[in-house]
C-alpha cells in the first residue's frame, strides 16, 4: 500500500484534470473577508487537508464546496461543472459535521439510511447499503440504538457512515476528530485513511491540528487570513516551509534572525546575533541579496546538543546555558538560552535507558546543526 501511495501524485502531472477546482474564490461576510481570492485544485482520490488557525477561512471554503455558502466572487467547479447556484441537496458531495449533527429522533440505522431514502432507492438496496456501512464502521450491533445512547467515538462513526452511505464523489470532513480524546483520535486517523483508500473517494478534511493533517493527508493546504499560503505534501510543508507562519504553525521550530553576508560555493553565509561565527546554510533555491534580513528556521530535532566543544571544522555552532529540561519519555526537550538572550528548543531522542552524567540544568552547552538542516525564510 505504501508504494501505491508514494506514486500517487496527480498534482505534479500537468495532464491530470482536477476533480474540484476553486478559481479566484472570494467570500465576504459584510466587511470581513473570510476567503480571499483563493485558487486550488483537488484531485480524485486525494486526501486533502485544509489546515489553519481558527478564522483562517478553511471552514468557509468547505461550506462553499458543500453549497451552504455561495462565493462572493470566483467559481468552484466539480468534475468540470460549475457549482454556482446548485443547492446543497443537489450536489454529489456529502459532509461530516464537526458536531456530527446526528438526527436525535432517529436510530443509528435510520440516520445512515436518511440520505439513501432521499434518493428513493428500493428498500432492499437501502437495507443492504446500511448494513455495509455499519460493517465498515463496525457498529453492526448498535443499529437500533438512538444517537443519545452512543459514546462520542461511536457517534463519530455513525456520522461518518451516514456521510459515506451515498457514495459521494467528495466527502467533506469538518474537524472530524476534534471531539475525540487523544488515543481514539490517533486510531481513528488511520481508520479514516484506510476507509478513504478502500472506497477510492476524495476526502477534504478541515482541521486546525497539524499532527492530524500530517498523518492523514496526501497534500496539505495551509491557510491564513483567507488565503492558501502553501499547498504541498506533509513532508514538504514540514521540511520546506515557505513562510515563517507555516514553519511556526506546523511543528516546533527555532527561528534565528540574521542578515545575509553572501554566497560561498552554493552555501549561504548569514550573520546572526545568536552565533559567534556566521552560519552556513544549504538552501540553494532561495534568491537572496547581500545584507537582506532573513529568518533561519531549524527544527528542534535537527539540532544537536553537547557538553564538549565541537571540533574546529564545525559549522553553525551556538553556545548557551541550559534553561529548562523536559523529559517526555521518548524525547528530552532542552531549552537553551543563547548569549543573545534568545531561547531555543533542542530535542534529543532517548535512545538508551541510562545516560552517564546527563546534561544538567544551568550547564554551558554547544548546540550545532548541519547546513542542510535549516531553511532560510525571507522576511
Amino acid at each position, binding site marked *: 500500500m505504501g508504494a501505491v501511495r508514494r506514486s500517487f501524485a496527480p498534482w505534479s502531472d500537468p495532464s491530470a484534470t482536477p476533480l474540484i477546482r476553486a478559481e479566484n474564490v472570494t467570500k465576504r461576510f459584510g466587511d470581513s473577508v473570510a476567503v480571499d481570492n483563493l485558487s486550488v485544485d483537488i484531485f480524485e482520490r486525494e486526501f486533502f487537508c485544509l489546515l489553519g488557525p481558527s478564522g483562517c477561512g478553511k471552514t468557509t471554503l468547505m461550506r462553499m464546496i*458543500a*453549497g*451552504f455558502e455561495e462565493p462572493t466572487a470566483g467559481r468552484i467547479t466539480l468534475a468540470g461543472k460549475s457549482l454556482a447556484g446548485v*443547492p*446543497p*441537496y*443537489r450536489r454529489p*458531495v*456529502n*459532509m461530516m*459535521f464537526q*458536531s456530527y*449533527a*446526528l*438526527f*436525535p*429522533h432517529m436510530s443509528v440505522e435510520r440516520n445512515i439510511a*436518511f*440520505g439513501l431514502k*432521499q*434518493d428513493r432507492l428500493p428498500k432492499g438496496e437501502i437495507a443492504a447499503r446500511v448494513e455495509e456501512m455499519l460493517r465498515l464502521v463496525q457498529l453492526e450491533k448498535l443499529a437500533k440504538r*438512538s444517537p*443519545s445512547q452512543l459514546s462520542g467515538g461511536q457517534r463519530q462513526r455513525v456520522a461518518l457512515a*451516514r*456521510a459515506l452511505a*451515498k457514495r459521494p464523489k467528495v466527502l467533506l470532513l469538518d474537524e472530524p476528530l476534534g471531539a475525540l480524546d487523544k488515543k481514539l483520535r490517533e486510531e481513528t486517523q488511520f481508520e479514516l485513511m484506510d476507509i478513504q483508500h478502500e472506497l477510492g473517494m476524495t476526502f477534504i478534511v478541515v482541521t486546525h491540528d497539524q499532527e492530524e493533517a500530517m498523518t492523514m493527508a496526501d497534500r496539505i493546504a495551509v491557510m491564513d487570513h483567507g488565503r492558501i499560503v502553501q499547498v504541498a505534501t506533509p513532508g514538504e510543508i514540514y521540511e520546506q516551509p515557505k513562510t515563517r507562519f507555516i514553519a511556526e504553525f506546523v511543528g516546533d521550530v527555532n527561528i534565528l534572525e540574521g542578515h545575509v553576508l553572501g554566497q560561498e560555493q552554493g552555501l549561504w553565509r548569514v550573520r546572526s546575533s545568536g552565533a559567534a561565527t556566521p552560519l552556513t546554510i544549504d538552501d540553494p533555491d532561495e534568491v537572496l541579496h547581500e545584507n537582506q534580513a532573513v529568518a533561519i528556521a531549524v527544527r528542534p530535532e535537527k539540532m544537536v546538543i553537547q557538553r564538549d566543544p565541537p571540533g574546529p571544522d564545525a559549522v553553525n555552532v551556538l553556545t548557551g546555558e541550559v534553561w529548562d529540561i523536559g523529559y517526555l519519555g521518548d524525547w528530552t526537550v532542552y531549552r537553551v538560552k543563547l548569549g543573545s538572550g534568545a531561547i531555543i528548543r533542542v530535542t534529543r531522542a532517548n535512545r538508551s535507558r541510562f545516560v552517564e552524567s546527563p546534561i544538567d540544568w544551568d550547564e554551558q552547552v554547544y548546540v550545532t546543526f548541519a547546513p542542510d538542516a535549516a531553511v532560510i525564510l525571507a522576511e
Partner: protein
Amino acid sequence: MLARSVSKRFASALVPAVPYLWLGLLFLVPFLIVLKISLSDPAVAQPPYRPVFEWGDILGFLSQLDLENFETLIGDDLYLRATLSSVRIAAISTVLLLLVGFPVAYAMARAPARRRPLLVALVILPFWTSFLIRIYAWIAILKPEGLLTQVLTGMGLIGKPLAILNTEAAVYIGIVYAYLPFMVLPLYATLEKMDDTLIEAALDLGCPPWRAFWTITVPLAMPGVVAGSLLCFIPAVGEFVIPDLLGGSETLMIGRQLWSEFFSNRDWPLASAVAILLLILLVVPIVIYRDVEARRLETRS
C-alpha cells in the same frame, strides 16, 4: 445547642414540605370540599346544600351523601352535549392555535438572536391589559356594525354586515386570540433550542428544504407541540368568559353550564358535580401527556 440542631433539622425538613403544604391546602382541601358538595343535596338555606359537616355525627353525615347529582348529569343529555361540544370547540381551537402559533414561533426562533427577547416580550405584551377588556374589545370588532364589517365594506369586499358575533366562529377567534401566547411560548422554546446544523445535514444528504422541515423540524418540535396543545386545550374545555361574551346563547359549553347551575339555579351540588366531571375529563389528557413524556425521556437516557 441541642435545641438549635433540632430546630435546624426541623427547618430542613420543612423546606421540601412547602410544595406539599401548598398543594394540600390550596388544591386538595378545596377539591375535597367540592367533592363533598357534589355528593350533597340542594336546600333553601345558608349554605344552600345539606348536609353540613359536623364533627359530632360523622356517620350520620356520611350516610346523607349520595351520587344523585351524578345520576342527573348522566341522565340529562344536556350535560353530555355540553361536554362533547366543549371538547370539540377546544380541540378545533387547539388545531387553529397550532396552525397560527407554529409559524409565529418558527419565525421568532429564526430571528437574529439579539432581536428574540423583544419578540418574546411582544408575545407576552397583551397580558398587560385585562383579559376581560380584551375580550370585550372583540365584541366591538365583530358585531354586525363593528370595526371588521366597516373595514371590509370600506374596502368593497363585502356588501352586508358580517354576522360573526354570537356564533361559534366568534368563540374560535376569541380563544385563538387569547390563548396564542400559551401556544407560541412552548413552541418557541423547543424550536429555539434546535440545532441548525441538523437542517444543514438533511440538506447535505439530498433532502429539499420543505421535506427537511417535515422530517426534522416538526418531529423535533413535538415536545413543544404537545405542551402548547395541552396548555391551550385544557383551559379551553372549561372556558366560560369567551363563549359567554362572544358565543351568544347558541354556543353550548360545559363552563357556561356550570356557571348557570351555580349562579342562576343556585344548585351548588349539581354545579360541583359538573366541576368534578370536568376535572376527570381534563385529567385524562394530562395523564396521557405524562405517559408520552416519560416514554420519551426513557428512550433518551
